Structure formats: C-alpha cells, structure tokens
C-alpha cells in the first residue's frame, strides 16, 4: 500500500512538470512563429517596393520580368519630381529649424518653470500629436484665410513646424527630465551665468537628443501629407507629388523613388543611432 502510494506520488510529481514543459515548449514555438510572421508582415511590403523598382514590367505583377534601371533613369529625368524633392527639402529644413527654435524653449519652460496656465499650454502644444493631421491642417488653413495669407510652401512650413512641435517638445522634455538639475546648479555655483550654463553644460548634454529629434522631425516632414494637403499653394512637396500620381495610376517609377527614400531613411537611422549612442558609455 505504502509503496504504491509513493510511486503514485512520484508519477504525479513528474507528470505535471512534463506537461508544463510541453506546454511551454509549444508556447515558445508559437511565439517564435508569430514573431517571424510579424517581421515578415513588416518587411514584405518594403521588399516588394524595392524589388519592383528593378523589374522591367510596367505592371506590378508576378512573375518578375527582368532587371532594369529604367525606372531610376526615368525618375531622374522627371523635372516635376525633382522639383518636388527640392520643395520637400526646403520645407523640411525650415520646418525642423523652426520647430527646434520654438520647441526647445517650450520643453525648458515645461520642465523648469512654473507659470500660470502651464497645463493649458502643455495640452495645447501636445494637441497635434494626438489629433488627426487633417484637423491641424484645416484649422491652420482657416487662420491663413482669415488673415489673408496666400498658400505657399511657407505656409506649409508653418504648418509642419506647428505639427512637429508636439514631437520636439516630448523628446526634449524627456531628455531634460533625465538631466540632473544639480549639474546646472553646479555650473552656476562655479560662477557661470545662466547663458554660459546653457551653452557650456545644458546644450552639450542634450545635443544628441536635439539631433535625434531633428532627424525624426525631418523624416516626418518629408513624408507629411494631411497638413500639406490643405496648406500648400501651387507647389508640390514630394509626398504630394507621389499622392497625385498615385491617383492617376501606379508606375514602378514610384517604387524607384520609394527605394531611394528608404535608402536615405536607413542612412539617417544608422546615423542617429550612432549619434545617440556614441557620446555616452554608461
């Protein structure tokens, strides 16, 4: 009796962990498969985009027809497209500069200063991150109509800068929060005026975050449609140009543009990751 009981116990004791182990194993297998699918899901379209930029056929269908660089040469001889790229560079450059000039003091104010209406100010400035871009675009369009501004690339710049402000403020604010206040106090304690402290101590320490933010904002501006849609005049930015050709029909030329954009984006990411990691070792 006693021995049977014991063997029963031992059997029960080993059986349960075994079942658990099987469950855990199959759980892991399931997770690995799923993670693979997610990655495939994320990268398949990007692969498709790139592959078909080198495909001879005019239509984007399988099977592949043969290798060509025609779409790239077409792209580089397309004056409208090149003008659009130029416009986008112009808009992105100035929108990023403006958003930094306004956003960095705003992040500072939110982190360091106390003033009446701070909560309202924070909510207002962060609004565009949550609101549909269309609404930001339309409301600014209303403003420009009321004051009688003509729509142009410059109004687009104002629109982008406003929409990107939310991103800039969030990023810089997060960095400032991690910056010990005592560092700036130490600088003041050692005789530095607030302006000296900003340039000698604060700025060098948030530099990486600023460059990172600038890169993010640049890509966002370079890809922006909803705000641009309402605020642009006769000139097209690159995404607006692509948008309008898409409505006319699909051509692999777009894939060529896309491949170039992806290439530039990847270079920017690698650059920003390198920037954000290089100066700090801890």
């Amino acid at each position, binding site marked *: 009796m006693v021995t049977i009981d014991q063997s029963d116990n031992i059997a029960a004791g080993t059986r349960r962990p075994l079942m*658990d182990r099987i469950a*855990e194993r199959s*759980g*892991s297998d399931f*997770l690995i498969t*799923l*993670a693979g699918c*997610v*990655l495939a*899901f*994320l990268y398949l*379209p*990007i692969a*498709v*985009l790139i592959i*078909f930029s080198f495909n001879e056929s005019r239509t*984007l*269908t*399988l099977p592949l027809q043969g290798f060509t660089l025609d779409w790239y040469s077409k792209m580089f001889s397309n004056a409208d497209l090149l003008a659009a790229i130029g416009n986008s560079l112009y808009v992105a450059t100035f929108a990023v500069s403006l958003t930094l*000039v*306004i*956003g960095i*003091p705003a992040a500072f*104010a939110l982190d360091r200063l106390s*003033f009446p209406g701070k909560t309202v*100010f924070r909510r*207002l*400035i962060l609004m*565009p991150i*949550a*609101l*549909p*871009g*269309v*609404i930001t675009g*339309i*409301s*600014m*369009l*209303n*403003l420009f109509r009321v004051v009688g501004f003509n729509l142009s690339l410059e109004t687009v710049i*104002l629109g982008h800068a*406003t929409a990107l*402000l939310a991103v800039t403020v969030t990023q810089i604010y997060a960095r400032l929060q991690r910056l010990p206040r005592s560092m700036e106090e130490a600088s003041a304690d050692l005789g530095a005026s*607030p302006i000296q402290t900003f340039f000698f101590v604060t700025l060098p320490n948030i530099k990486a975050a600023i460059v990172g933010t600038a890169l993010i904002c640049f*890509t966002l501006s*370079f*890809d922006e449609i*909803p705000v641009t849609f*309402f605020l642009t005049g006769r000139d097209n930015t690159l995404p607006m140009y692509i*948008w309008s050709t*898409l409505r006319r029909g*699909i051509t692999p030329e*777009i894939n060529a*543009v*896309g491949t170039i*954009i*992806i290439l530039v984006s990847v270079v920017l*990411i690698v650059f920003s*990751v390198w920037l954000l990691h290089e100066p700090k070792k801890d």
Partner: protein
Amino acid sequence: MKLQTRKRIATLGVLSPPVLWALIFLFIPYLIMFTYSFYLKKFPTFEPAFQFGNYAQLVTDAQYYQVLFRTAKISIMVGLFSVLLGYPFAYFLVFKIKSDRVRAMLYMAVIVPLWVSYLLRAYTWKTILGSEGILNSFLVWSGILDAPTDIFLYNQFSMVVTLTYIYVPFIVMPAYASLEKIPRSLIEASKDLGVRPLRTFWSITLPLSSPGIAAGMTIAFCLTFGDFIAPALVGGPNGFMIANVLTSQFGAALNWPLGAALSIVTLLIVLTIISLSDTLQRSGKLELE
C-alpha cells in the same frame, strides 16, 4: 536688481516665443474652427450665425453618422489586430530572447519601418492587394485561383490590413516597455508556487502589462481615427472615413461650417479616448506599486 525680478525676466524671455506660437498657430485656429461650426452655409461660402444646425445634421444625416460609426469600427479593429500581433511579439522579445544584443536588434527591426515613408508603405499594399497585384498574380500562377479576384482591395479588409501593418510598431514599443518593467521575481515567485505558465501569464504578466497595451491601443485607435491616406488609397466606396469627409467638406463640397462641426466632434472623441486611456493607465500603474 532683485533676484525674483531677474528670474521673472528670464522666465518671460524663455516662455514668450513658444506661448505666442501656441496662441497664434494652435489656439486661435481651433477657436476659429469652433466658431465656424456654428455658422450657416451659404454657397459658395458661409455667413456668421449661431445655430446648432451643423451638429444636428451630423446626428440626423445617415451619411455622416454612418461614417463616424465606420471610422470607429475600423479604428477598433485596427487597435485589436495591432495588439494581437504586437503584444506577443513584445512578449517574445522580453521573455524568450536571452541575448541583449539580439533583443535590441529585433526591437530596432520593428521600429525601423516607422522611419520609412508612411505613404509609400500604404501604397505598397495597394500594389500587393490589387486585382492585378502581387497577391492575385501569385494565387493565379500557383493555381489556387482561376482568375484574379478583386476581393482584396478597395474595401474595409484592405484598410484594416494596411493600417494594422502601419500601427503594429506603435503597440510593440509601449508593450515592450511595460513588459520589461515587470520584476522577473514576480513571475518566478508565481512559478515557484506551482502556478502553470499560462495561469501565470493571465494572472500576473497580462494585468501588469495592461497599461502598455492600453497606451498602444490608444495610439493606434487615435491615429487610425484621423487617417486620411489609407482610406483614399486602399479603401473603396464603402471605406470612406472621417478624414475623407472632412477633406471634401473643406474642398469639393464647400461646406465649411459642417466640416468645422465634424472636426470639433472628431476632436472631442479623440480627446475623450485619450483621457479615458490616461485614467486607465494611471489606475493600472497604482496596482504595480
């Protein structure tokens, strides 16, 4: 000069540019929009008035409230599917990957697509799902289908696929952050007490990471709710969403007051969702402490 005065002047110097900017480019535009929503349409423009006709039209005209419902439905579906894909992925990264480097690389791999043009990624789905597209030509070539089908594109299915594709990384990021914060000792303690892995997941891991899920779902929901590109590119006639209606009111339909009212309603819905999710996340955080 007194220390207090000096501080006040410095404060003013730092503060006034952003505050002025926020006033001119955010507050006043929203205010104008709000005012317009009470105006009367009068072809080809509108005239000042104070009446609730535009709001009434949104509630009574099936064309508008159906779009609102459809937008909400699609946003919820996108949120759900993004979580179903993104959360297990984050879980996999945090708990199943042993090497820090591999984990960082896989995490980056999910984030990188965010940097790639949103427009182009949406466009690619159009080329994949179209009746002459890659999926169809593959299915015909492999003999599964006799002739290309048009069931993949220009409907709500294609929109949900495209938008889910775009918002999965937005779920992975907060889910990863909240899963990483869970002390391993809690999970080990649960296992130590003989609780099965699945029970441990349901009773410990999932509740503790729910703030991350909520944050991610809110982002996916709100961004989908105002999305303008996917419906125009891959949505068909029954795929019109709020942003498209807004565009036409301020464009071809030239009904600015109605568009303004719809904007205000959208704004309120999005802000409500955000504050709801905020309170939810805050209460979730309290549980952790």
